[in-house]
């Protein structure tokens, strides 16, 4: 090792994530097809496969977030807001979680403002919404809800569930509490931190984007809200 320079993991971060994502894509696709063929029953195998799908989606989401944060830090991310038709955006985001929802028999309500177009970085926001829905699957009882509409000159994307909701301290503390690892809940805070950073990157004139957590909503559980001016 003596002739090598000091190790620097960042050199391999991009290429490794790239490589791992190819593997995970194939894995995910295989599980999805197996699930589609298998009949949803009470058997342990079906349930285990569904859990595998959930885990691969989590890994995929985390990898993208890590790599993207690394790029933000080095000014390497090509941030490019584009006009997006909201119905199309929602359809695409939902398609990433439909197999998981179906396998867990979780219902999804979608409510969108008609004829709505908004400008944002599609890939980043799609990543947040998919990750949030994926996360909600773990905490909900049997229903999710995606609502997108304009509120006070900003686009608000709400992801709601009918689970027990967020612990009150998370709702109260806002993004200040969203950092640091919590091994007892398995949450690293990465997802919320990532969402907060991306929201901040979006802005118009004086207002910056933001995220917040609420309890209640139309389904009575946890609500994650992303606001993009």
């Amino acid at each position, binding site marked *: 090792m003596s002739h090598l320079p000091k190790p620097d993991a960042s050199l391999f971060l*991009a290429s490794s*994530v*790239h490589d791992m*994502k*190819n*593997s*995970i*894509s*194939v894995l*995910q*696709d295989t599980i999805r*097809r197996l699930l589609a063929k298998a009949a949803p029953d009470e058997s342990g195998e079906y349930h285990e496969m569904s859990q595998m799908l959930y885990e691969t989606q989590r890994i*995929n989401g985390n990898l*993208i977030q890590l*790599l*993207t944060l690394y*790029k933000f830090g080095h*000014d*390497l*991310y*090509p*941030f*490019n807001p584009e*006009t997006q*038709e909201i119905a*199309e955006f*929602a*359809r*695409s985001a*939902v*398609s*990433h979680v*439909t197999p998981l*929802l*179906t396998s867990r028999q979780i*219902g*999804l*309500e*979608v*409510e969108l403002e008609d*004829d709505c*177009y908004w*400008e944002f970085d599609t*890939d980043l926001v799609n990543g947040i919404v998919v990750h949030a829905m994926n996360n909600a699957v773990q905490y909900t009882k049997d229903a999710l809800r995606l609502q997108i509409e304009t509120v006070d000159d900003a686009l608000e994307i709400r992801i709601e569930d009918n689970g027990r909701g967020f612990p009150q301290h998370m709702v109260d503390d806002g993004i200040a509490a969203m950092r640091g690892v919590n091994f007892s809940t398995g949450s690293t805070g990465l997802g919320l931190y990532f969402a907060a950073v991306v929201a901040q990157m979006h*802005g*118009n*004139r004086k207002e910056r984007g933001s995220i917040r957590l609420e309890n209640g909503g139309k389904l009575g559980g946890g609500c994650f809200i992303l606001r993009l001016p």
Partner: protein
Amino acid sequence: MISATTFGGADIDTQLIAKSTFLVIDDFLGMRGMLSSVLRNCGANPKSIDTASNGPEAIQQLAKRRYDIVLCDFNLGAGQNGMQVLEEAKHKSLIGPSCCWIMVTAEKTVDTVMGTAEVQPDAYLIKPVTEAVLTARIAKIKAKKEAFVDIDRAISARDFLKAIRLCEERAAVDKANAIELLRIKCDLQMQSGQSDKARQTYEKILAARDVPWAQLGLARIHQQAGRHDAACQLLEQLIEQNRSYLDAYDSLAESYQALGENEKAETILDRAVALSPNSHSRQRIIGELALKTGKLDRAEKAFRKTLKLAEHSVRKTPDAYLGLARTVGAKADPQEALNVLNQMDKLFDNDEVRLRSKSVEGYVYHQNGLARQAAEAARDLASMLDRSSVRPEPLATREMAELLLVAGNRDKGLALLRTEVMNNPDDVRTVDAVQAIFRKVGLADEGSNLVETSRKEAGELMNAGILLARDGNYTDAIERMRAALERMPRNVRLLLNAAHIMLSYMERDGSQAALLRETKRNLLAANQLSPSEPRFVELMQRLEALQGR
């Protein structure tokens, strides 16, 4: 309110997918299998899906069969990347305008999303690709292609006014593409001497939202008008807020160079390279800048990198070879310079490259004190100039003239410089550059004299035609203008005045098909030389009115 299951399948044109042909390009077998299965699940006929694992294979397949939709991984391992495969397919006309080329990438990078290549895919998709995303994207691209087909056609015919009208009509009904149409319209206005109108639009957009391309547009208007200080200020701010906006870096480097701030230009280009290491044109600009400032090692490195990056690209240009030859020539290695020029001559087969190659060859000999070889090259160059009417762009033409002046063919050199001045009699930079050459070769007095007489002659030739036209003698006026254009084919004012006289003649005595074509040629030539010239639009409108009659 809609439920998830029906929601996922909405709006999908299964007919469109079922009758389409597909090519999947990916170096990874697992991904090829997965993308093919996604396509089958979307309703594609398995017999209509072909696969390729690298660039050459893909090009072979594309040559054999017409594909409606291509899914191509950006990263194809060694050799060509996805963008270069697309470039080659376009260049060889293996794909038509209706083909959807979708680039699939594992991650979003500046290079994949904002590559400065002129050839762009129709869409980028980030892995994993789902059926719903793919079908929605294909439907969207098809709709957009249909919407833009007339506009694209008008743009490639350089019919800017029509293209602008079509953009306006379309934007009124197409909400999804309204912003994109507005951006195209502003670009077209900038290209057709209507920067005032473009500025109004940019300012209107910026009053409502921070839109980077509108900010860049404002900066470019400053650049066009030579206000590089103002442009720099805007661009520095723009980059501060949009760290990955490469076009802004390139524009800023241009303005720094115009202000003589070469160090700053160098720094900003280095930052752009860190973001996007694979652009060969930017490496070439770095090389040219370094050569200009005498940093020969840096220049050589940049030019060699340019050649390496362009190795698999069909869009190579001779400039990096010429730059490299000059650089190694300046490093007192004329043999290597010659090798580089020989390599270039094998790749490019046209008069312009041959002229420039000979000119650099002679210059390198001269620079290294090889007087006999330099004189020989100058002689060859002079006879090549007699045989060909092609003249390279001004900088290269001035270089040829300099060689001819120092290496013994003085009359030819003077004639070239005379034409240069006559083409741009009012342009201070041209006149300065020409005077500088004369000073360098010890002919300062002769130079001032030539500049004066050339400018005078250019004015007289043009005025002769204008005076005749004023008296209503259009046929003689047009003859005079044609003769003047023979002497100074790139004089923008002359081109526009000639068009004006031809139009006035036809407005009085009726249109003539051949003269209409000649007028249009003159106008387009003027526009290409000087896109910011505001008279272009007014003259084009008069031409359209005559064509409509």
